[in-house]
């Protein structure tokens, strides 16, 4: 796979079809892969990498890159392709300046997920036939990739690419029996007290580093309301329970109907807050109340929050459904 991608990238760079290539670059330890812009065949030969550790979603970088002279080649995993499609819909990425190459993906892992298994002091990771061979300061471990997949990959929603110019590998299908809403449903079934306690525990860890927002392909505002002193709600403090609630509710609301559920927010959170649950809650509600809707599925789709029907549910549906009552 990696070799085919390198070949394609070099071919298109050399033919002048594209001016640069967005891909992943090797790091210090095999796992610390960085998104990178490659401008020469040499760089690609030496530094380009693609494997089960290439987690970052590159699509957001196109907001900047697609405004540069010449085309940008981007490699897209299926979920990244949804993000790109949504970005094109919102005119944030200039489609004509993008050469999108869809690549197949069987799920990604990363250092955090591996380390959660108690594997520490990693010095080398190699991958063979879906099994990771991990050398550490304290011994060698073998672990199949599927055992260390991130949640978003375990509950992969689709292996399809809504937008691409070319595919490397097989085009997949949407995953119909995806269980991504199970966790949301589980929380919905709790009592309000339990839900409050659950989210207090999660959100109180927030350090307002803004990584979730800054990595989010739906959060591409030129200036975020929370950074804009003139908005009246700019905030930096992470002192009080309210600030985190406000930030995360409003952020989830702003991306509601636009979030493609790529899961980057939860991946980057240094405090392991399952932020995707908020976005998924909105997606689940939208599906249940307004019909199934997958942001990014088609370019030009109208987000459910900029749409309506006369017979939409009234908000009191919230009072009537879900959750246990106060016992």
């Amino acid at each position, binding site marked *: 796979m990696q070799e085919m991608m390198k070949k394609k990238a070099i071919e298109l760079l050399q033919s002048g079809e594209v001016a640069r290539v967005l891909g992943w670059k090797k790091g210090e330890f095999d796992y610390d892969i960085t998104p990178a812009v490659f401008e020469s065949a040499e760089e690609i030969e030496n530094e380009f990498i693609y494997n089960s550790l290439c987690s970052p979603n590159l699509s957001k970088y196109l907001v900047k890159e697609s405004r540069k002279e010449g085309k940008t080649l981007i490699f897209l995993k299926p979920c990244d392709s949804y993000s790109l499609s949504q970005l094109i819909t919102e005119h944030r990425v200039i489609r004509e300046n993008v050469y999108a190459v869809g690549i197949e993906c069987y799920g990604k892992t990363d250092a955090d997920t591996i380390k959660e298994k108690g594997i520490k002091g990693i010095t080398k990771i190699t991958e063979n036939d879906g099994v990771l061979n991990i050398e550490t300061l304290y011994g060698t471990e073998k672990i199949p990739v599927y055992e260390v997949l991130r949640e978003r990959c375990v509950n992969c929603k689709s292996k399809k690419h809504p937008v691409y110019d070319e595919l490397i590998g097989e085009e997949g299908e949407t995953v119909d029996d995806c269980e991504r809403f199970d966790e949301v449903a589980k929380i919905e079934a709790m009592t309000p007290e339990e839900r409050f306690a659950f989210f207090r525990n999660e959100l109180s860890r927030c350090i307002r580093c803004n990584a979730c927002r800054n990595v989010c392909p739906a959060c591409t505002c030129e200036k975020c309301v929370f950074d804009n002193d*003139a908005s009246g*709600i700019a905030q930096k403090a992470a002192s009080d329970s309210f600030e985190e609630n406000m930030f995360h509710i409003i952020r989830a609301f702003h991306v509601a109907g636009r979030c493609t559920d790529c899961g980057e927010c939860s991946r980057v959170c240094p405090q392991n807050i399952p932020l995707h649950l908020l976005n998924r809650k909105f997606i689940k509600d939208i599906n249940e109340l307004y019909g199934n809707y997958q942001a990014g599925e088609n370019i030009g789709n109208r987000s459910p929050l900029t749409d309506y029907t006369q017979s939409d549910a009234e908000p009191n549906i919230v009072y009537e459904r879900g959750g246990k009552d106060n016992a």
Partner: protein
Amino acid sequence: MQRIGVFVCHCGTNIAATVDVKAVAEALRHEPGVVVSEEYQYMCSEAGQELIKNAIKENALTGVVVCSCSPRMHEATFRKTVAAAGLNPYMLEIANIREQVSWIHKNIEEATEKAIILGRAAIAKVHLNAPLTAGESPVVKRALVIGGGIAGIQTALDIAEAGFEVDIVEKNPTIGGKMTQLDKTFPTLDCAACILTPKMVDCAQNDKIKIYSYSEVSEVKGFVGNFDVTIKRKARYVDENKCTGCGLCTEKCPQKKVPNEFNLGLDNRRAIYIPFAQAVPKIATIDADYCTMLKSGKCGVCSKVCTVGAIDYKQQDTYVNEKYGAIVVATGFNPIKLDKYDEFAYSQSADVITSLELERLMNAAGPNGGTLLRPSDKKHPHRIAFIQCVGSRCDDGKGKSYCSKICCMYTAKHAMLIREKYPDTEVYVFYIDVRTPGKNFDEFYRRAVEEYGVNYVKGMVGKVLPEPDGTLTVRASDLLNGQQLNLSCDLVVLAAAIEPDNSARPLATMLTASMDTNDFFTEAHPKLRPVESPTAGIFLSGACQGPKDIPETVSQASACAAKVIGLLAKNTLKGNPCVAHSNELLCNGCSSCEKVCPYGAISYSDKEFRINGKMVTRRVASVNPAVCQGCGACTVACPSGAMDLNGFSNSQIMAEVDAICKW
């Protein structure tokens, strides 16, 4: 920092009886920014207003808060007052301490406390008020009417009558619309052509009216008072200026097998044709789908016979650009297609026809010269069944959920006319309900039943079965007598539901005028603004807004004209300054706001900005203040807060929230 004056009104005892107005004035005097705080018996009185004006001048106030009755009552009054003292009228806020305080609370302490809080909220808001000026835009004194049926004709004539220029765009070769195809009209039974054709001729002869026939609107830009419209003039291959309408070509054309749409395909016409004798304009048109010359380059008969040389096989579509101050939509209706109603055998038997087809069959200019004969064997029908509500009032998804409104009456008319002309013919009408609300309508229906002996059967028809002997068996239930009927008929007439013309939807998109789920245009208010679209400058005439009969259509058409005249009579339009505006430096160009704008007031353009010393091109939204009505839907759709609303800005509303919550 603003210099704010607070003026607390007693409203006689209306407020003062339950609110300690002196305490309110005293408490508000200590709010930051307040430099004067007074109370008075009646602030809205001459003397009260004088007090405000003097205070503004003496204290160099920059903002005013009046604690009084509802702003819906006296906001306009006090805006004028502050304006008279040289303040911008939008530097005023009103705290409603009558309707929201004194009139609903009994406890003086509680009421006074609430009045103070509402006063603080108004002060907090006025701190953030900015002077607003309503923009003005000129009005192009010309109207466009889209659709040349009776609705469009009436509107155009009325507008022209008032002295304004008006253009009619009609997609067909002639104006006149559906009414030209009708035989007689209810409830007076006068002939449609007799009352319509004079109006068509009036249009043609009125020098204020210009008719673009065989034309369509292809692009609409601009906004109320200043629309820029592109009209596509479809090639008719006949020079309009030369053709005299003599009709020689239409007689000589060798292509005779073209279904005649005017008679709904019940007979044929030539490839070059004039739809009917009274067509306006009376100009021939070549049907490119059938013309041998246009298709194969061999023929040219019409060109040879034309004495004025009007035939031009090389004609192309042309585009005309015009500016208009107002646009009237009069796109009308069509009967629905009946291909989903096989139970009535419409597609299987030539003798199952629609009511409109019946109109043609009975019309003197129709295929049978006015004699009612069955289409299949040209025999006189002895028993006719009318089936009502075919596709109307349906909740099965096949038809329309609404009542088509006109069918009950025209069916009574048909039944009556048939019984009068052919007393030996039995007429049955199968109905769900008979709906006859209208002047002389019920009387008309009762005459059909009582004088003309039409058999009305309450019950729906389950099936129409074509029999080998050429008759049609109508299977129906007679609900009132509780029995099943098997009626052998010679002709079955279906009252097909009507729906908006299919050109309406794309037009609505061009006009950014909203539509309901049935593709009828929505009115600005269902009761109080029935002939205006919510989109400023777009008006609705006739059945494009909902099913209507002729009298209703004509009255709406005239009402619509009155609204258009009212607009065109103005030289400039003064906008509402409380409109949305986009902070271009914050705008992402994502189009969310545009999608929720009911008025199409938001547009996008690529603009260059100098950001950190570099020139950057960005797609940004801008709001046309002449079109925006200030609802604020866009402000919430905008994640970056680039969209804000004058007079109700995010920070103003949050300041009110803060003030209310802090006590």
